[in-house]
Every structure is written in structure tokens, then in C-alpha cells.
């Protein structure tokens, strides 16, 4: 027996695309036959999985390499910020990124700041300060211990960076968090009392 079939390439492509996007539980809109918009920011892993999955069917994601690279830079910065003690104090973010991602630092820096409107240095400081805040909120470490753990050269340097990023000194930040906690527990007590 023989068949003659007629394939509507557009429908096949659309179906395949939908199946893959749904498998990854992405919130998407098909803008046209060749354009997909995803509402949330997609993780590197998911994007790689999607790219790989689609490539089996000859479907290639063309215009997204920059976004992927930006996401990789962000991920690498966060990784860098969390390396702390293991990291040689002299390693700086520029060497770290260019070795890790295999691009010249100047290229990465330009791409990053033209897309995110933040420089890599500022983003690194923001992430590092976030880590310091997290430790201040969730650990019993004091400022000098945090400063040492995060590889700041001195307490004064740590305070200065912290103030530059948040507008608050580490002490003021701690005091505010403490008061917020007290306010929250009082509220819970009132609710429990009712």
C-alpha cells in the first residue's frame, strides 16, 4: 500500500513548538510563524533544553544569543560572588568572566551595559551586597566576619561599598531589619490574640 501525503509545514512547526514550550511549562505567546514571546525570564538550562529539543526537528532559535550570553554573565557573576573563601583575593571579575565564558572582557562589558544599562562592576557589587544583606539577615555573623567572608579588604571598604549600593550604612540596615522584625512579630501577636 502506498500513501500520498500532504504536509502543512506551518502547522507541523507550530505544533512542535507548542509541545516543546508546554513541556518546559513556559508561559508563551506565538507572535507569528517565526516569533515566540515568553513572558518570564527563562533560565539558561531551560533555554538550552529548548534549543536542543527543537534542533532535533531542524528548528533553530536564531535571535537570542545575546540574551543567552547576558544570562550567562549574570549567572557567572553570582557564582563568583558565592565563591568567597575558595577564591584567590586577587582574582577580579574581569579575568573570571573572560576565562569562564571565553570572550574578551571588553566585549562582555559592552554587551552587558548596553543591554541592561548597568555595568558588570555595578552588577557584581549589587550581587555582593545582596549576599552581605542575606548574611546580615539570616546569620549570626557580625559585620567584620561578613567583611572577611566576602573578601572585602577592610571594614571601611565594606561599609563604603554597602552604602554606595544601598544608600544605607550596614549598621542602619541592620537596625531597620531588626525593627521590621519586631513590628512583624507584634502584628502576629495581635492577630493571634484576636
Amino acid at each position: 500500500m502506498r500513501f500520498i501525503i500532504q504536509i502543512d509545514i506551518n502547522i507541523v512547526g507550530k505544533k512542535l513548538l507548542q509541545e516543546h514550550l508546554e513541556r518546559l511549562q513556559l508561559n508563551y505567546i506565538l507572535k507569528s510563524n517565526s516569533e515566540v514571546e515568553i513572558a518570564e525570564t527563562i533560565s539558561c538550562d531551560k533555554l538550552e533544553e529548548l534549543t536542543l529539543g527543537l534542533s532535533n526537528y531542524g528548528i533553530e532559535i536564531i535571535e537570542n544569543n545575546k540574551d543567552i550570553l547576558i544570562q550567562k554573565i549574570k549567572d557567572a557573576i553570582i557564582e563568583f560572588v558565592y565563591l568567597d573563601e575558595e577564591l584567590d583575593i586577587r582574582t577580579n571579575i574581569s579575568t573570571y568572566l573572560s576565562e569562564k565564558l571565553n570572550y574578551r572582557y571588553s566585549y562582555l562589558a559592552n554587551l552587558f551595559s548596553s543591554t541592561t544599562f548597568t555595568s558588570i562592576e555595578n552588577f557584581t557589587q549589587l550581587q555582593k551586597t545582596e549576599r552581605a544583606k542575606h548574611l546580615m539577615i539570616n546569620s549570626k555573623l557580625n559585620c567584620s566576619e561578613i567583611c572577611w567572608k566576602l573578601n572585602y579588604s577592610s571594614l571601611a571598604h565594606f561599609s563604603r561599598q554597602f552604602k554606595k549600593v544601598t544608600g544605607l550604612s550596614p549598621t542602619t540596615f541592620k537596625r531597620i531589619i531588626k525593627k521590621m522584625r519586631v513590628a512583624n512579630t507584634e502584628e502576629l501577636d495581635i492577630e493571634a490574640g484576636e
Partner: protein
Amino acid sequence: MQNESTYVLLADDDEDDRLFFKEAFEAIRIKTIVKTVKDGVELLNHLAVNRNKLPHILFLDLNMPFKSGMECLMEIRKTDYLKHIAIAIYSTSASEQDIEDAFINGANVYIKKPHDFDTLRKLLEKVVTINGHYQSSGLNRDGFLLSL
């Protein structure tokens, strides 16, 4: 991620300030949609009616008639469907006490109103950028305090 415009809402009773603010947003590099309301009562009504389309950042003037910025802030933080909105206090006061109170009551950002346009533009761009990082880079919002 850069394609979606940031939706900004401002509550301020001063007409000149509202205009100044809108113009500053037009001058920044990030795409924004700016809406304004003229007092706290109008603000809370607006949020209640438009609960499907809440702002990415809400800017609150502290001194407003009928309902002050601080009262709005506290009310918003107690309302389930509103409590996650990023809130920036936008005020002429720069007293340490006002700043601390605003943070304790749940503000994320405290901006002292600048007098010149260029400073305002830079400050607003910084707020939108950093807020974007909190939204897209999975930062923990609990510690999102920024004083400018």
C-alpha cells in the same frame, strides 16, 4: 526581558511634580509607561479597580491630602493582592527618621526629591534598573532597601 515596558505609577498632589516626574521618565533609556494619580484615596481606588494590572513600581509622595503616603504604604503592605508591589517613597523630606520609618513600614526605596531635572532622571533610571534586577535575577526582595 528587556522588551516589556516597566509600568510606573506615581501618587503626588503637586501638579508640577507630576509633570516633572513624567518628563524625567520620558528621558530615561528604559521603556516605561507612566501613570499618575493626585492623592492617596485616588491611588487606592485605582489599584482596587485595576488589580489585574498593578504597577511594577509605585512612587508615593509622603505629604498628600486625605491620605498620606505613609498611610497608603501601610495599607498596601497589609493588603494581600498589593503587598508585593515595589514601593518607592518620593519625598522632600530627608530626615533620618522619615527614611527609617518608611523602610520599617515596608518601603523598598526612599528618594529625596531632587531640584534639578538631570539628577531626577538619573535617580529614576537607577531605581527602575535595580528594581528590574530584583525582578529578573531572583534576588530576595526582603532586603530590598535603597536610599537615594
